[in-house]
């Protein structure tokens, strides 16, 4: 089936407008706008409590919103909308599957409701990830449950995958295997993945685009190379030392330490940096930041 009833890769698979979500008196998400075109892998970053889980649950239609609108695959999530829901794969942060069911029974039950279900992939992943089909879901370890939730979410071959910290409980091998599987899925046309994680190395490996959630909004959207090009660490060195930062505009953070002035700059061109170094009689060293460094600076 064509992804989401004729939605093409250039159209928005996710279209969030003016989203507001409150818990009691606290705005968790506020005036949030976010448009995700098809065929992308988006890493949703944000500090603890930024609202990543809430946003993903709202997008899956599992949590009511207070204001604004969310359209997934071209339809509002105000109502589940029938078959459309089966084109969304959702892996929650905590796995509230049916703990009293056995793995086999749970997957058979779920598969019975889906018109398309990748049995071969399911069996392969169960074997690869060593999940005992005869065990009760409630008796699986947290990591195994997470794997099962991933297997279940991938099996219907969804057009949109929403993954809330899917690798948090996985060991390094399983994490790598999951990322490989994810990459395989993304290579299929029209597949879109949004996943929140704190493991930035996975985002780098997946070459994911970055969306940063802060103060209830998406404050930054960028692909990784562009972000690295934009935000850099600049070290200026001179024997006289530094009394004040040599640059103010475009500086996210400045640390003056003896002969070194260390600046994290956003969108400052190489020419400008060279001119400052010349003006201050300092030696210039521009270093790229890892995604983890970027996260620390921005979030």
């Amino acid at each position: 089936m064509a992804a989401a009833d004729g939605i093409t890769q250039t159209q928005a698979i996710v279209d969030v407008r003016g989203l507001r979500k409150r818990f009691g008196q606290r705005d968790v998400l506020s005036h949030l706008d976010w448009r995700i075109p098809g065929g992308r892998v988006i890493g949703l970053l944000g500090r603890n409590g930024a609202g990543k889980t809430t946003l993903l649950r709202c997008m899956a239609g599992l949590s009511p919103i207070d204001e604004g609108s969310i359209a997934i695959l071209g339809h509002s999530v105000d109502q589940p909308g029938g078959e459309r829901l089966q084109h969304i794969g959702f892996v929650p942060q905590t796995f509230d599957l049916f703990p009293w069911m056995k793995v086999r029974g749970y997957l058979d039950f779920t598969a019975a409701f889906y018109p398309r279900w990748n049995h071969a992939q399911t069996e392969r992943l169960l074997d690869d990830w060593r999940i005992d089909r005869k065990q009760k879901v409630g008796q699986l370890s947290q990591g195994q449950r997470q794997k099962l939730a991933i297997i279940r979410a991938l099996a219907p071959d969804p057009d949109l995958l929403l993954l809330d910290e899917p690798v948090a409980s996985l060991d390094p091998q399983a994490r790598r295997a999951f990322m490989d599987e994810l990459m395989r899925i993304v290579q299929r046309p029209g597949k879109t993945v949004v996943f929140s994680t704190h493991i930035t190395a996975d985002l780098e490996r997946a070459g994911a685009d970055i969306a940063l959630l802060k103060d209830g909004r998406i404050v930054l959207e960028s692909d990784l190379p562009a972000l690295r090009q934009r935000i850099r660490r600049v070290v200026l060195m001179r024997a006289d030392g530094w009394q004040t930062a040599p640059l103010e505009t475009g500086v996210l953070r400045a640390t003056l330490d003896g002969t070194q002035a260390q600046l994290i700059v956003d969108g400052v061109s190489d020419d400008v940096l060279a001119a400052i170094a010349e003006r201050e009689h300092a030696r210039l060293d521009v270093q790229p930041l890892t995604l983890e460094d970027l996260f620390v600076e921005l979030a």
Partner: protein
Amino acid sequence: MNRRAIGKLAALPFVRMPAGMILVGVVWLGSLILIPATHAIAIPFVGMTTWLAGMLLGMTMRTLMRTDTLLLPDFARILGQTGLLYALVLIILPALFLLGVSGNAQNILLMAAVQLLAVALGLASGTGFRITLFVWIIFPLVGLLPADVHAILLHALTTSYWVPLLAALLAALLLRFTLRPLLTVSDREDDDSPMQAIADGRKPANTASGMPQQRGFIGKKLKPILDATAQRNLERSVARLRKRPGTAARMSVIRAVLLPHDNLQGIAINVLVTTLVAGLYFTLIHHGDGMNVGFITSYAVLIGMSRFAAVGRGMVKMQPNLADLYLTLAPETHAEFQATIADALLKLVAVTTFNCVIYSVLIAVLLHAGAPAELLLTALIVGVGASFGALAAHLVGPTTQTGRTLVQMGLLIGAMLIYNLVLWLMHRFGVLAGGFAGIVICLPFGLGAWQYARREYLTRRPCFDAPLD
């Protein structure tokens, strides 16, 4: 002594269940003050409210006692000191009040021992130990005792120092059974359906995560058998759905997931076990004379209706699990999903009514009831009406633990009263007229309540958030 920690622990029941604790506290205190004026009326009230207070303390303990709490430094000692504080108030204080009325030391000791027993029973009930049903059964059993035994017991109650001692020992035994699993750090074993938990009498309805479960010998033996029947039933339902997809097959699969043990084999096993236990029980106690068969049979309804305690709790506890079901079923609207859940649970009306009738047959046979048709018809009529009413109440009723408990208690008392009313109508006006009157009383009420609740439930948006208590 860590006064701050003791203060926090002692205040916890008031923080978690302020309305219940204040209400019980006010009635308890009022009854206590009335002891000097009218002790014959006030003392039973003190005992009853002490039992209720114990229950609320037990409910609080159940949510508190989990692995991370038990590992707090000095927790057991602080808990013990808090317990002593409550014992001082609930046990010693009433005894002192009685001292003002009667100087009889035996009476004072008896009062203290009974208060201790009331607290122990309440704690046991509140923590999920299914002792309440046995307590209810004690009253008719006392009525079965020969007059001479009655007289001896009454004499012993008023004169013997052994009675308070025995009561205190019984309370200590009960406290040990109640507190021991609560104070034991054990592996989490949360692999039963929340809707199913209490039905088999194997697990309290309000199991908190990380809590050790009070599972008896029979429960342990039954669990794998019931699980196997649930698995087979699910496999059959899924196969039927694949072969011939349709609304009925779909509903059958959903029911197999939500109510895994409510399949034919599971119900049969439960009935068989109940029959064996009840058979043994009645064989042991059966004297025949003076037994009110109608009253005893109303316990059949009580046992059947106890199933709904799990539904009330399960409806809330299951919310996060339903998210997966929601995505799987992919309904067109929220109301469609809600209707699916509500209609799936309708099976409970049939199961409960069936159980009520079967248990009535069982009791009628065991007690050689004179008019079994009346008993069965009453069980059938009241079973249907009360099940619809109970399902309605739990579907849209309160979501708090206290609220659910009160609703369940109201339902049980109401069902037993209506059972006895319908039975009386049949005795008074005959099976046909009385039965017709019973139908007129029960069914419109039950069906009306169910229809209202279903309509209301459909207007609600499904909630997939984990419950807070």
